[in-house]
């Protein structure tokens, strides 16, 4: 089989073999419905689910009964935001979030705005992707019912100052939700220290299975209420009806357990890989720019803009479609050509990265199963591909001739 290297661990992660092993019995022997109250099959399943609840709650300093299982982070974000807006509609309708949130947050907010159910403030971020907590404070009005700020960004890996925002939220009596998808199981979270009231996470970003996620909802100090978005059998204390995905939940819990035990060691190892990749690339190429925060970022995230070459053409050179004899490398780009909308990354735009550099961005997502050897190989391929494409780039040639590209192309449009 053709050699492949996976470096897109923000998109999803492979299942850890230990997770698979934990899940297997629940497909066939212990296949019961966790809601079956009258036989062993049901009891086993319920026990497994409740054990998993303990494990998940333990990771973030919450209580087991505060965990709601659902299908993933997108559903979790939807239930959190829509559930709050609906339940507290008499208290207010204002939401504060940031411009670099995942689409699961932004599109949920947009949908509520369209239906005139909420008013939303989208706070800007600085050039490294961080929101200023004092701007959160200033944005709060008497109508504000919810602040939603992500833990870590999926494109640039920037970690937000949640503890500071949580403190402000507590002071002002506003609920605080975080989409923790990218940071959950990778960086320490304590919902009490960070003043978080609702937290969304997904299994498949931490070497668990796809199709399972959680929403943690604070039950005391303050108690947070939600209006259910899925009606049915009243599962999950009525907050999310639907037969529980027992195998998925067991796998998620195993993934959490591993993440918790190995977090410190794993972060150090992945950070070293990232630095190795970054150093190798930068030692051989000029005009490569880091997107995001230099230190307050996920260990596995390296987002670089390679000036004068377009991201999709770079992916084509790396992903093996144009070079069947070479290893197929999986990375992502913020280039318009790789997005469904044909617009460059809105996250990079929010950072003030010009469209011309956003088109040249590549996201490397390092994870548990990447090796030093893979990093060295990818760095070499990136370097040779960038050099080749720059030889092909009129912009590189013009820049080397001393032409100011901004002046030259001023007035040119799409």
């Amino acid at each position: 089989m053709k050699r492949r290297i996976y470096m897109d661990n923000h998109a999803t992660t492979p299942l850890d073999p230990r997770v698979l092993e934990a899940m297997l019995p629940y497909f066939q022997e212990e296949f019961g419905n966790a809601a079956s109250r009258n036989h062993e099959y049901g009891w086993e399943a319920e026990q497994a689910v409740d054990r998993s609840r303990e494990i998940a709650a333990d990771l973030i300093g919450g209580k087991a009964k505060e965990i709601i299982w659902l299908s993933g982070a997108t559903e979790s974000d939807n239930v959190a935001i829509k559930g709050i807006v609906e339940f507290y509609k008499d208290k207010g309708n204002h939401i504060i979030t940031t411009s670099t949130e995942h689409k699961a947050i932004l599109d949920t907010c947009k949908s509520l705005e369209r239906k005139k159910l909420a008013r939303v403030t989208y706070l800007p971020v600085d050039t490294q992707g961080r929101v200023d907590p004092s701007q959160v404070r200033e944005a709060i009005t008497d109508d504000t019912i919810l602040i939603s700020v992500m833990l870590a960004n999926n494109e640039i890996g920037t970690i937000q100052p949640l503890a500071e925002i949580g403190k402000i939220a507590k002071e002002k009596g506003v609920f605080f939700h975080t989409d923790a998808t990218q940071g959950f199981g990778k960086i320490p979270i304590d919902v009490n220290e960070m003043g978080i009231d609702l937290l969304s996470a997904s299994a498949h970003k931490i070497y668990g299975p796809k199709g399972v996620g959680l929403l943690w909802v604070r039950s005391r100090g303050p108690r947070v209420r939600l209006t259910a978005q899925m009606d049915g059998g009243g599962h999950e204390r009525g907050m999310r009806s639907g037969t529980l995905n027992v195998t998925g939940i067991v796998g998620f819990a195993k993934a959490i357990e591993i993440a918790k035990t190995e977090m410190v060691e794993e972060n150090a190892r992945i950070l070293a890989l990232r630095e190795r990749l970054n150093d190798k690339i930068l030692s051989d190429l000029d005009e490569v720019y880091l997107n995001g925060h230099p230190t307050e970022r996920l260990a596995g995230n390296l987002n670089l803009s390679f000036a004068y070459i377009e991201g999709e053409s770079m992916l084509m050179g790396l992903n093996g479609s144009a070079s069947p004899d070479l290893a197929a490398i999986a990375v992502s780009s913020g280039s318009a050509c790789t997005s469904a909308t044909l617009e460059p990354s809105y996250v990079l735009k929010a950072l003030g990265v010009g469209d011309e550099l956003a088109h040249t961005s590549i996201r490397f997502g390092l994870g548990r199963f990447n090796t030093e050897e893979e990093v060295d190989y990818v760095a070499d391929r990136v370097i040779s591909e960038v050099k080749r494409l720059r030889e092909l780039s009129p912009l590189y040639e013009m820049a080397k001739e001393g032409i100011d590209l901004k002046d030259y192309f001023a007035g040119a449009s799409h």
Partner: protein
Amino acid sequence: MASYSDKVLDHYSNPRNVGSFEKNAENVGTGIVGAPECGDVMKLQLKISEQGVVEDAKFKTFGCGSAIASSSYVTELVKGKTVDEVEQIKNSIIVEELSLPPVKIHCSVLAEDAIKAAVKDWREHNGEKGDKGSAIA
């Protein structure tokens, strides 16, 4: 982007006629079209004989694989044709040759624009020979 045609992949891996001519030379027309903010910039240069025949062509492109392939293909397409003939080249022939999907048609349009811009440039700094086509937009 998984569905690139073999011809796009071939032009991307082995681009034809990459490079530059002296842009101030009398027999060279240079077209630079697109913008970095849009993710596509093509530079097409045509070397045109006194008889108005394209003798050689070179390109450099910043853009996706389809943009690179479109401009690479155009350098092959124009060689040996007269200026009048190359001005008649429509993007549809590029779309057809490279089997470009709908989202990549703008790459072929840009390549067509690059040909027109290069001819226009050649006419401009080539006064008497070029004035027959001074109305080119």
